[in-house]
């Protein structure tokens, strides 16, 4: 018997590209209609001859006719992402497999308050969360969105960011590490904003994504503010090759981040979250 090959790719067409920030773009991909994914999951995107990269799904999959559309926001940092940014445009093809991983526990958040805390490109996997809350607004309590980048031009989704503040019962707090003339929000780190969270601490969940150092600081501050470790979730990044728990490269302690994560609660992670290089 021939086993199924999980590494087969679906050919997908790029139908839209948006410039987000220097070196960052959002791509809309067209997939077959059977595709569906949860917020916080990721796809492996393959560029011919170069390789695959894990990219978070940055919009809830949208079914239209016989296709499903998803978005990915990619930042150019290396071989494959560099090629995506410089070569992939509307009309290009890419290979895709997924979705993979365990996303944000939205169920857990239902009926409770929700804090979304993101740094830089870390908003990409959290954007579907915001959109889901928006589309079933009554299912959730108060929403706080805390988002920062190193300078205003590095914020993602600038074309819709301020609209998040208009979602009912929602507070939007933005920050920029550096001041700029037109910037009217907080100047400083996004973790400074944790002070201004106004949800029911005992009955809420917090979703955090950003650079690892930012997540560590965030979690410390959140714990200080009285959130329990089982209320705080982070989405982790690791070197990933297979996405399905067989190549071993994404291990963090005994977890395969690709399969058991990338989203974990701080209580699940325990000391893994704090020990460097474990």
């Amino acid at each position, binding site marked *: 018997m021939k086993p199924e*090959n*999980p590494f087969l790719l679906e050919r997908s067409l790029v139908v839209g590209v948006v410039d987000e920030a220097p070196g960052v773009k959002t791509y809309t991909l067209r997939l077959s209609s059977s595709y569906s994914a949860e917020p916080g999951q990721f796809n492996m995107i393959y560029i011919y001859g170069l390789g695959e990269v894990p990219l978070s799904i940055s919009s809830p999959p949208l079914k239209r006719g016989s296709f499903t559309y998803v978005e990915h926001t990619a930042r150019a940092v290396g071989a494959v992402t560099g090629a995506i940014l410089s070569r992939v445009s509307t009309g290009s093809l890419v*290979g895709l497999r997924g979705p993979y991983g365990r996303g944000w526990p939205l169920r857990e958040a239902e009926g409770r308050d929700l804090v979304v805390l993101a740094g830089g490109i870390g908003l990409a996997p959290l954007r579907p969360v915001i959109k889901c809350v928006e589309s079933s607004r009554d299912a959730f309590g108060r929403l706080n969105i805390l988002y920062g980048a190193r300078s205003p031009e590095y914020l993602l989704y600038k074309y819709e960011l301020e609209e998040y503040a208009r979602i009912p019962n929602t507070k939007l707090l933005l920050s920029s590490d550096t001041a700029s003339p037109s910037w009217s929000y907080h100047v400083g780190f996004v973790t400074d904003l944790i002070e201004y969270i106004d949800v029911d601490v005992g009955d809420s969940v917090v979703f955090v994504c950003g650079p690892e150092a930012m997540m560590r600081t965030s979690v410390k501050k959140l714990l200080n503010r009285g959130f329990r470790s089982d209320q705080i979730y982070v989405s982790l990044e690791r070197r990933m090759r297979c996405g399905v*728990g067989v190549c071993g490269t994404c291990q963090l302690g005994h977890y395969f981040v690709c399969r058991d994560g990338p989203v974990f609660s701080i209580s699940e992670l325990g000391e893994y979250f704090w020990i460097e290089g474990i």
Partner: protein
Amino acid sequence: MKKLMLEFKKLLGDPVFLGYKRGSTIPVFDEIRSISELPLEISDVQKPGKYEIVEGFRFRHSHSSPKWYLLPPEQVILTISPSYDAIDSGVSEGRRAVLFGVKPCDLKAIAVLDKILLDKHPVYTAKRRGIVGVVVEECMEPGGTCFCASVNSGPIVESGFDVAYARLDKETLLLKPGSDIGRQVLKSMGLERASSEYTELYKQMVGRAIDSMKRKLPDLERAQRALRGLASSQEFWEEISKKCIGCGNCNYVCPTCFCTEFIDRVGENHAERVATWIGCLTYTYGLVAGGHFRKQLYMRYRHYTLHKFLYYPLQTGGLLGCVGCGRCITWCPIGLDLIENLSRVLKVKNVEA
């Protein structure tokens, strides 16, 4: 031995035989075409950082293992065109095969790999599903770096095989069946039930085999507790890994290490996606664009050790990632000794307690 092979051949419809094959230098795991290819007339001498073949009849293993077949060093997982059409899905059906003369630790290593890869990794799954028979050679005289008894994977087997044999001396084989197929094979070989003289001798030899293994982990659970306690001690891991140079040999020879890296081989008009072994001791492991999750060698050495003794059990429902074969000790060019290190773990913990 010849009869044994023939009976399997008859019963299972001409499978291929896979085992340690004598070559010009050192036996490697490969297809066995005739009994003369089996390493029946040699022994290996193994020490930390040292391996030699001498005359004898106690061949245990080499740098090679069944992993070479089940999860080969390079696996083509997809061939694809520039327009993203799959030219070849890479996965073919596994050959019907009998593992012949593998060691108890090898068998355990396969059990470990099964838990991680079976029905998940297409290449492994195909090859593994093709294995229709297992013949194990029990170890009456374990090798110089072996410590299988300490981790419950040898020197004899209790389950998971069809026929197991022990070489009581150069000429005498004691066989035991481990499955219906095994019983059938032994029956058609027309063998007699071994007299108590032989079974007693066997028991004695097994006892001696266990005692002869100098490397021991007297109390695995305590070692595991100690490791848990030491996970965050940078100082300890730096000290333990001081001599390690991150060459990765230990990973490649380890029969349970399964980590792979995916690379693309681009040709003129298609690309091959290839999974190749990568070791967690090498610098690549944990490297990401713009950063590194295990930049220091001590972190990677720690992961290697903790994976084997703490994390595999959590990933496999209880099986250790180390089967005590001693390969990583023998084939380490520096001769670093995993078990010596673990003994140090216990000592450090004693001091602290």
